[in-house]
């Protein structure tokens, strides 16, 4: 289960489908049926909540703030990563070894780089899901407004990581 999952407050939901059409993994369908003003409505619903990646895009897209992102308990033995969505996700080039694992898991294709070279996150493309954190073994990824450190010479980085 993702570290956050969405809960729609249906009394506040107008069914505009912003969540459905912005979700990067198409989690929602229109299977929540209500009758409002005498007519049948289909509202967004998370049928396969286990597929949610907890990015919070749905909540941020909702124009009337009818979606709460609820924290879940992490799986046993695993550390929870609770994102600060007001801050960008960045990579410290001095810690990154260019293994590409983060780039391969990114659902938004926001991480660019070549093998064995420091990777960079396109902050406008990033959806702040935190999946990259789960893959990085070098603790190179951080979620704050701290500026990206300058890249120190390669030999020094190699010495640090050995």
């Amino acid at each position, binding site marked *: 289960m993702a570290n956050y999952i969405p809960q729609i407050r249906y009394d506040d939901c107008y069914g*505009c489908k912003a969540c459905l059409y912005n979700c*990067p993994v198409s989690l929602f369908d229109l299977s929540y049926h209500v009758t409002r*003003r005498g007519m049948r409505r289909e509202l967004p619903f998370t049928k396969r909540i286990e597929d949610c990646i907890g990015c919070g895009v749905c909540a941020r897209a909702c124009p009337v703030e009818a979606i709460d992102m609820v924290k879940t308990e992490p799986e046993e033995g695993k550390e929870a990563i609770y994102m600060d969505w007001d801050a960008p996700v960045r990579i410290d080039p001095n810690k990154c070894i260019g293994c590409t694992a983060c780039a391969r898991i990114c659902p938004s294709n926001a991480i660019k780089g070549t093998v064995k070279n420091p990777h960079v996150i396109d902050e406008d493309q990033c*959806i702040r899901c935190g999946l990259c954190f789960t893959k990085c073994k070098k603790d190179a990824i951080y979620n704050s407004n701290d500026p990206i450190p300058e890249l120190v010479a390669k030999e020094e980085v190699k010495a640090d990581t050995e």
Partner: protein
Amino acid sequence: MKGYCGKILKVDLTTKTCTDVYINDEIYENFLSGAALGAWWCYRNIPAGADPMGPDNVLCITSGLLTSTGSVITGRWMCVTKSPATGGIGEANCGGTFAPFIKACGYDMIAFHGASDTPVYLYCDNDGPVLKDASHIWGQDAAVAEKMLVEENTVPGKKRPQACTIGWAGENKSFMAGVCNDNGRIAARQGVGGVMGSKMLKGLVLGGTRPVSGANPEEIKKLSKMCAKRVNMAFLPPQVPAGLLNVAKFLPELQLSPDGIFTGVLMGTWGTAGASGFAAQTGEAPIKNWGGSQKEDFHIRKINKTDGSQMLKLQTNRYYCYSCVYGCGGELDISHIKHNDQGYSRVHKPEYESQWDFTGFLLSDDNDAMLFLNEYCNRAGIDTISTGGVVGMAIEAYENGLLTKEDVGYELHWGDAEGIIKLTKQICHREGIGDVLADGCKKAVERLGPEFAKYAVHAGGTEPPMHDSRPDPQQATLYAIDATPSRHTSGGSLYYGCMHLWKKVTWAPPAVLVGGKEGEWQISDEESLKVLACAYFKRVVDGAGGCYFGFILGTATYPMFEWLDAATGWGKTPDDYMWIGRRVFTMRHMFNIKQGLDPWYSRPHGRMVGEPPLKVGKNAGKTVPIDAKMMNAWKNAGFDEKTGMPLPETVEALNLNYFLEGPIENFIKEEVR
């Protein structure tokens, strides 16, 4: 981010190359995005005299500045091109689900240049754009093609893409073809789908996940909550019959300016089709190809057989476009209706335009035929407004002996649903007489002869919608002077009354809450300023991606100016945004002039302005002094009132020489992918 991406995608279909085009902030700040950006790009890239069906034409598919920023009722996408129907700027506008997917690929707009020699479609996701072969879906209707394209590009666990496609009419390069999305929503007008077909572009499939935001998301959402709450307070239970509105017959003719929230009641309860009874009773709905009247030609019993309540009986669900909190749409089950030889089942509810175009306009009370034809036209990807118009012309020509059974192959009569269905199908496929009619009334007259012109009702090559301009001089003027003529969505007296623009825009004249309509026939600067206020505001709304039914909710409910400022942080006033609207309005006229059109080209057909006036019915005796109205509107727009050409000082004041003639490298940076 300020709501817009700052980048468009240019696809050259001849060389099969894709280029990222970064556009300077000053273009957005002076034109907004959406259809305005499309019009600017078309002006800069379509050479004078370009064949609309040739490779020199450009087709822009665009979403608005506000889309996906957290505003509501702002999910429209638009097609902008040189129209084959008019020879000037062509635009079509659609709801559905496609708009957010354009921006989620990181582009405000996708512009198609050149033409492919084989059927292709554009696919784009986070990895970027690629042109793919579409020969396996060429020949499919728009809905089937959309379904096939989405399924073959859906990857489990990733974002499901959305698509827009053309149908048979677009492939046949009909001047009435549109571009479809979400199983039958359509950007229908002015042949934009025909242009897409001429480029052998079957569709677009988009599946990116790039986030979009405005400068001040909290303020945007605060406004959205207010709008959503107000809209959802205005409704009637569906058991209330739409026939109740027939009491309008007994009302005197009045200028009404209630808060636009009252139109929300109509839309929210029955959808636009709820208007048909009211429209027919008040003279709003043209009847018998603009030549008849409800009193003589279409009894109230027939109206009641085909009104909005009949549709609600078949409705299984409400339908909401992306970001809409209004939900004027619906889904119907038509599996059991007569004439349904295609086995259609779950379909979109017809809009008022389609509903009236295939019923009262052609004197048919066959509701099933209308329901079937609406879906058939959606599948064909053809504009129901123009199709109804050209069918009306053909029927009247037949009834008056200009067309015979030998010409058509069967009989054509007013109210004969079988004939109407046969002819519409032929038009969709360019078969038989349908090939002559498939490009609209103006082209049909060129092919058939000038004696048909009296029945060919259009303005500048665009058939008018089901909103009679004889009782509404403001609307008649807008049909004439907008650069995309014959469009009720440019505005009119009733809409101006709902918008309440004068509460935000310092120069917009107020309309009285309830009053006589006589003043609307006056030739006055005040009347022209009302017309221009509608026209400029429409340009703002189309730059933002807003819906027409949003802007007729009124400025108290639909805070367009406030949303734009919250998204961009520009600190502009409503007057500043209307100045942008004026700039776009003027630019579109300059496009037409560059393409060789004389501004008088869009003077409406006589029937649209009461030349001669009807003798019977609500619009009896009404004539709009259209020449004087056009000239006064031009004068107030800063154009030469005799020629309709924008005056040099107007062009200079709007800075259009700089934006339209300065080197394009000043405004863009290209990176070939």
